[in-house]
């Protein structure tokens, strides 16, 4: 769609649409909403705003949309999830309301969720089916087998409450309005609805360390670790850190994860989700421009007026919506004077301690994991978690506290080409791709910054660790892509290389994500500026949650202006 057509696009009946004072100054009619960043949340917001009748423009710095929901080509016919490798947390309502199926999204959900092999040749397998998982645990420990269904129930019941929390806009603590009271009542009801014991349990469990929580149900270290992993995934925390129980529960909120967690692939790679979202947004009338690098957010008299591109082009808009992380948005793009010293100080202190690296491999053939035995073709479709034990995870974390990279990182690997051959279509027969999330690799190294040498060393450490459960895998590697936290920052604009835009600890949660007083998707003191990315409630992961919630608030404000 060309600009000409775009300008002739649908014109919502908004009074006072003259560009006077709307900033920009290019003379063109201002957009109703311009969205900075075409990550999955930005696209979700764009789709909803366009559906709501707002003239919406998405500006993406990279050549393709999707942000962390991306597929990259390691070689001819060898495609791999660049960062995120599963999409099972995507909100069902987003999938439904944007009709992503019609826009080409097709999901694959293997019946095995997690396969956690140990070097000793044993393995913990978590299936979609709870009973089956419990049976599988029985040969290790009857306690663990008995404990699993109860633990799964606990995760699901608290997950339901957190989903309710996640779908609601955090109340306004300063000047509560009737709507906030209703939200409070609704949550209160949900809270009480849990029943006295469950609600007490929530208060007890949320601040807990995941190591303590799993220890209440399971006795085997390997089982504890396989489950506890999601409590620390993408976080600068170890299993003994307070608040990691909440991270696991958030990960299971609003999806079918339960105690095992979700394992759902987008056919063609996570980029396919971005493509579907972009298609849905365009179909609703939104325009998307790639290669458009926003360098500043313009404002006047306490109101955001538009954005400036690297090219110098100014674009005026009534609503400026940032899908970028809140620190980059507020510190790098907004004029410090407009932001004010206190909010500036607070924004500068938003914690973004990235500790995650990504290693993507092209493999000559399927690696052999002795622990998987005969059933490999099936078991290896799940998330392959290499986390030998709780203390092993904690030790891996320890290194990162002092700016060191774990000698034996904790890994979550997937071989998506097993469930989705499309990824390797057009490559040599037998080829597979492996996508590996590696923790802990801190953004801030004690010894200088990340470079080719340290990146290689990290890649080697990952292969070494994989060799422990998949002997000979090193020999099979034909392609290797190592993305350090610094790469995540440079290539994807993630401050500190943090995949969740801001650490999801208890100190950056709900009412104070990213900042207390600015958790309602609006930036206090700067009308017309909104946050719609993972740095906003309910936080990171491929959920579309922040984008969907933010769109609801932006449309509400637009309606008020009418």
């Amino acid at each position, binding site marked *: 769609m060309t600009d000409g057509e775009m300008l002739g696009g649908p014109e919502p009946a908004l009074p006072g649409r003259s560009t006077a004072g709307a900033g920009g100054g290019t003379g063109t009619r201002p957009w109703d909403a311009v969205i900075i960043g075409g990550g999955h949340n930005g696209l979700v917001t764009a789709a909803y705003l366009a559906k709501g009748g707002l003239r919406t423009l998405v500006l993406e710095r990279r050549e393709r949309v999707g942000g962390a929901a991306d597929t990259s080509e390691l070689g001819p016919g060898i495609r791999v999830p660049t960062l995120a490798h599963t999409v099972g947390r995507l909100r069902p309502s987003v999938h439904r309301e944007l009709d992503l199926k019609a826009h080409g999204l097709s999901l694959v959900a293997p019946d095995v969720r997690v396969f956690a092999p140990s070097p000793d040749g044993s393995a913990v397998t978590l299936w979609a089916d709870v009973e089956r998982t419990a049976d599988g645990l029985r040969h290790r420990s009857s306690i663990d087998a008995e404990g699993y269904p109860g633990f799964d129930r606990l995760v699901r019941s608290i997950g339901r409450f957190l989903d309710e929390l996640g779908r609601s806009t955090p109340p306004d603590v300063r000047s509560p309005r009737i709507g906030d009271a209703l939200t409070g009542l609704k949550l209160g009801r949900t809270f009480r609805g849990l029943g006295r014991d469950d609600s*007490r349990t929530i208060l*007890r469990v949320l*601040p807990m360390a995941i190591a*303590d929580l799993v220890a209440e149900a399971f006795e085997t270290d390997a089982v504890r670790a396989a489950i506890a992993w999601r409590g620390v995934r993408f976080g600068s*925390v170890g299993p*003994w850190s307070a608040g990691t129980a909440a991270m696991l529960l958030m990960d299971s909120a609003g999806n079918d994860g339960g105690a095992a967690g979700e394992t759902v692939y987008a056919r063609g790679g996570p980029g396919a989700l971005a493509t579907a979202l972009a298609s849905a947004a365009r179909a609703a009338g939104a325009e998307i421009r790639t290669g458009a690098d926003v360098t500043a957010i313009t404002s006047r008299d306490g109101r955001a007026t538009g954005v400036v591109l690297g090219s110098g082009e100014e674009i005026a808009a009534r609503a400026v919506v940032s899908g970028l992380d809140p620190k980059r948005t507020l510190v790098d793009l907004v004029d410090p004077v407009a932001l004010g010293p206190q909010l500036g100080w607070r924004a500068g202190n938003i914690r973004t301690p990235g500790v995650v690296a990504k290693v993507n491999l092209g493999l000559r053939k399927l690696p052999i994991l002795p622990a998987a035995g005969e059933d490999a073709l099936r078991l290896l479709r799940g998330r392959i978690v290499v986390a030998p034990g709780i*203390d092993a995870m*904690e030790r891996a974390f320890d290194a990162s*506290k002092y700016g060191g990279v774990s000698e034996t990182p904790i890994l979550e690997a997937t071989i998506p080409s097993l469930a989705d051959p499309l990824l390797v279509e057009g490559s040599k027969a037998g080829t597979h791709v492996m996508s590996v999330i590696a923790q802990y690799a801190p953004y801030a190294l004690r010894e200088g910054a990340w470079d080719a040498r340290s990146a290689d060393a990290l890649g080697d450490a990952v292969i070494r660790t994989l060799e422990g459960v998949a002997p000979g895998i090193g020999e099979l590697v034909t392609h290797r892509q190592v993305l350090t936290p610094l790469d995540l920052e440079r290539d994807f604009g993630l401050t500190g290389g943090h995949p969740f835009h801001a650490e999801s600890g208890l100190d950056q949660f709900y009412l104070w994500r990213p900042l207390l007083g600015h958790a309602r998707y609006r930036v206090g003191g700067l009308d017309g500026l909104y946050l719609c990315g993972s740095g906003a409630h309910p936080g990171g992961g491929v959920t579309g949650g922040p984008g969907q919630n933010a769109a609801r608030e932006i449309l509400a404000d637009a309606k008020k202006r009418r």
Partner: protein
Amino acid sequence: MAQRYDAVIIGGGHNGLISAAYLARAGMKTLVLERRHVLGGAAVTEELFPGFRFSVFSYVVSLLRPEVIRELDLPAHGLDILPLDGTFTPLRKGDGPKGADGKSSGDYLWRVNDHGRTIRELRRWSKNDAEAYEDYGQLMVDMARFIKPILSIVPPDPASNDPRPLLPLGSLLRSFQKLSERQQAVFVQLMTMSASDFLDQWFETDPLKATMSASGIIGTYQGVKSPGTAYVLLHHYMGEIDGAFRAWGIPKGGTGGISNAIGSAARGLGAEIRLEAPVGRILVRDGRAIGVALADGEEILADVVLSSVDTRRTFIDLLEPGSLDPDFETEVKRFKFRGSSGKVNMALDGLPSFSALPGPGEHLRGAISISPSIDEMEQAYDDAKYGRWSRKPYIDIIIPTLVDPGMAPPGKHVMSCFVQYAPYHLDPSLGTWDDNREAFGDAVVDRISEFAPDLKSKILHRNVQTPLDIERTTGLSEGNIFQGELSLEQLFFSRPVPGWARFRTPIRDLWLCGSATHPGGGIMGANGRIAALEVLRSRGRGRGRRVA
């Protein structure tokens, strides 16, 4: 024929004694039963070596509630708190700002109660930190003002359908809304952040951050980088806003001085106190506590039984098995203790000399903090996480004889060293604490000697208290000095058991009044006071006599 009381209190620690005083004050016939020959539980003074008297366990007083001091008129009963002036953080050669030669002679950071002097001292290290210190200090005082009321409310049960107990929360919310946005945000950070992350927002000087963060981890099985450790930073400022009393001080005659003062106040109000009277059982009939039986079988009946000992002692050791609802018992067994600290008490021939600031002087009169850097603090925790005592521990040193010479013979000194980390549960490969006691003591002496090389030559006697010793002597489970970890999930309405934070227990007429309850440990006395007032309220005596 068993004797009868209105109230019998298990344990003569400071909280038990405070409860006794308040109950007696309201006219209840009250008896306190203490297992040991000395009063005070963990707040005792004992002559460990001839002529040398020590605050064997708890050694400073920071938070003793002013209302308790006032209402029980403790000064009249001999309470005399000597202020500790400042905190001295010595460094080693190579630490601290480098000179022109690029080397450092080893510096120190010395903060005193004189604000101006502290600012000048900080400026030596960092202009930024000197400025930030003002901003930070003001914010923390504001926070302390806001938090203070929380220390004296009875936590509601958020799951209950009775809204009344929630009312105090309403007033809290209102005063929260009165705070500025930044103050609100900082409050939230205090409740959720790690001490290290929190301080990073203001300061860059490593020894400053390390020394400040130390107060966040005392008595916990957490590191300065563990989320949830920021909150205790406030405690340093609580004292300040109480006006009359300094943030930190030591009682004349050691912490036993506090216990004796409270004991004398309780006796004066008519309470009876029996020493060497260990309780063997809490007597329960028809789900109601009717008294206690001493270890020797003697039975003592009472209308109400208050336990100031921890939940494991109270519910698991002292109750007939099967008297508890299984769910409640599960929660009690879940409650985490995980003692993490030890104590090394030394009798000295003379004062140690710190290479950063040699010789005697004012800097030795306050707290001496072995906390050169955040990373060393955290590494000490890393050892503990895997069941080893810290090879290079954090140590908080006090030399009481400099402010209270009577604690040792003329010219001699006593030195109290609070040490972290010393995890109660050791890695099996290390054996038991009985096998590790002296090696641990040596490690502490070696650690201090890094900063005061002549220490070894001054030591006359050494007494090492491991978490196991603390448990054996004081009865504190796993040697946790707070009667249970002060971790987020064990605070406020979840302390000690979710739904049972109101000092009552599922056994009617059995109450808790120790540090196991809200607002937790430390020589604060709030627990004992609020518990007693709740008991009185339940008996319709709340208004009988004006308190507070």
